[in-house]
């Protein structure tokens, strides 16, 4: 699904991301963990072609991300609230997302209803996104991807800022989407417990490089925690 070759990205002299090769397979949930400044968000931004890489290539389903925009049709992402259009209501934002991904309104509504527990605290119709709490903004961004169900999700710290019940609901939503819709997911997080529980593989980033790859079958949570 995602193939990275000889990726390098730096910000002047201050930071470097260097990944010679990385493959995110189909229908897997892959987690990315690392300390602050390890390069998690930069990696996601490179994959989503939000920053210009210095060297290397990134392919999503054989589409080179910086040359061809067709990969965006099968990709949904949410990095932070600056990617929301804050003068819209949540419902308007969902409608535009659904329209761009060619999801009919009735299906969009059905899917929204299925996530009603997750977004119960969200006033979709009347409150503008900019007036929502940060947790509800995050829910808006996440749900806008859930209702369109592309093949690939890329989320940057989806659990951060959510209350414990919402985190549990999000966890089960992600698992359900992977099992029923065969989705591929790439999730970065500091929350080792949740990441271990839902991810098939976990990439540990240190100093801009993938230092280790862990999986549920061969490693347990303690192995992951020991790294930090």
């Amino acid at each position, binding site marked *: 699904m995602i193939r990275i070759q000889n990726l390098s990205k730096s910000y002047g002299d201050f930071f470097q991301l260097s990944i010679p090769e990385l493959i995110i397979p189909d229908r897997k949930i892959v987690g990315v963990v690392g300390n602050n400044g390890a390069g998690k968000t930069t990696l996601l931004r490179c994959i989503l072609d939000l920053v*210009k890489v210095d060297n290397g290539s990134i392919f999503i389903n054989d589409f080179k991300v910086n040359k061809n925009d067709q990969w965006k049709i099968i990709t949904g992402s949410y990095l932070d609230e600056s*990617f929301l259009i804050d003068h819209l209501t949540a419902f308007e934002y969902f409608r535009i997302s659904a329209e761009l991904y*060619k999801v009919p309104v009735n299906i969009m509504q059905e899917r929204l209803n299925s996530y009603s527990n997750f977004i119960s605290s969200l006033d979709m119709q009347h409150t503008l996104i900019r007036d929502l709490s940060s947790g509800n903004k995050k829910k808006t961004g996440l749900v806008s991807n859930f209702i369109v169900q592309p093949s690939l999700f890329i989320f940057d710290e989806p659990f951060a800022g959510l209350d414990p019940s919402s985190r549990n609901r999000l966890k089960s939503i992600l698992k359900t989407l992977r099992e029923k819709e065969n989705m591929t997911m790439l999730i970065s997080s500091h929350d080792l417990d949740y990441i271990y529980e839902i991810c098939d593989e976990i990439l540990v980033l240190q100093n801009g490089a993938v230092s280790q790859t862990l999986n549920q079958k061969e490693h347990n949570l303690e192995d992951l925690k020991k790294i930090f």
Partner: protein
Amino acid sequence: MTINNTTSLLIKELFTIKWLEIKRSPFFRKKIVSIIFNSIVFINFIFFSFFGGIYINHILTRLYPNKSPYSVVSIYLPLIIVISALLRIFILKIMNWDIKPFLHWPVSKKRLSFIFLFFSFFNKYTLPVLLFIISYTIEWIQETHSFQTAIFFCLVQIYILIFSELFSLTVVKSSQFRISIFIFFLLNISLSYLITYHYLYAAGWLTPIFSVINIYYIITNHNDYYLLFENRKYPKSTYRKFIYLSFYNEINVKRITRNSILIKMTVIYAICMIAGLVTILNHVNQSEDPFRLTLMLIFFSGHLTFLLTVGHLFNWDYNWRDFIFAKPFSLYKYVKSNVFFAIILCLIPSFIYLIAYIVYSLPIFIYLSSFCLYIIIINYILAFSSIKNYHFVNPNYISPSTSDFRPGRLFFFIFFIIAGYIIYLFDGSVIIISHMNLLPSLFFGVIGIVMLLSAPVWFRIILRYLKQNKYNMFSR
């Protein structure tokens, strides 16, 4: 589903999104006082821009009876716009953050960035110039009944305005646009040459060709959306390092606010200072009544300072003024740190002013300089008097301002329009106080003096009040 289809869908949605952005602007959710005040400011500038285009010919005819006012405007309007773009190259600009929410959607990024470049053109500082051009074109048609010539003039000026704006938006940030520097100025110099020698028809026909060339180049080369996330990139060129390192407060303000307003303000002020010196020397030899001149200039200075400065008090977002007024601030260090940069940068516009004065005998730029001088003096007085009394609520966090106050372009627009009024005043035939004698001039002068002298007082009072009530005023 293809990217082209979704991009077309998004283009349709964009107009709805933009309309909702205006309709749901935080501006309309503030207290009625701020809405009324900002509306007055808005109407004031619309008035100046529209009627400036209508009445500028009267001013120019009285000043230069041997020249056609149309040729004067045709020559100097593009030069002013291009000089403004030149200065904007040196005044670093932040990229438009509006594009960010759309980048993760299935749309063509090149088309998207191209669309947002043109959306950027329609801002509150370019639109007044556009209004001026349109109103001047209408006046041209009414006076001369020469429809084709007027339309060609309009097209040429709008072309130069659009591409100077796009040029300054893109060229500083992208090395791929170095070639566009030469293309843009080559094309615009040739247009100005054609206009200067009265080949307006040729300029008018060439405008669409030049537009296509520029648009094609931008579409095929523009990748500026990457630069939204490159804020951590340290400027590599020595020149840019010099800009960053030569300021006392601007470096820290820019790191926190990601806003280049202070740099722009300093450049504008520096230009004004040097140009003002030329003005003073010129006034010594002029025969105008210096007393009336001073009174009217004080009136306009106080009036415009009020409009330009107080507007930010009702700004939804924090901006650089909130920060700069919160910290202990040494005006001496601030001015001293800018001296070398000011001297270097002011040589450029000073040469331009000198050429205009010597070659064309046009004193209009000298009067513009005097106006600039008053503005800079008044703003420094305001800054100095306000800094000691305003205590910022939370200096640790300042969000990037989504409603940037960009005085750079605003100043240039004001130069052209208001300078015309000032020149009109010199002649004693003011648009609103025609054939006035000393008493009305004195009246307006007193108003200006009161506004200037009271500025520190009302500024402090309003700021203190707003600090206490800011969160209540900007209610959700």
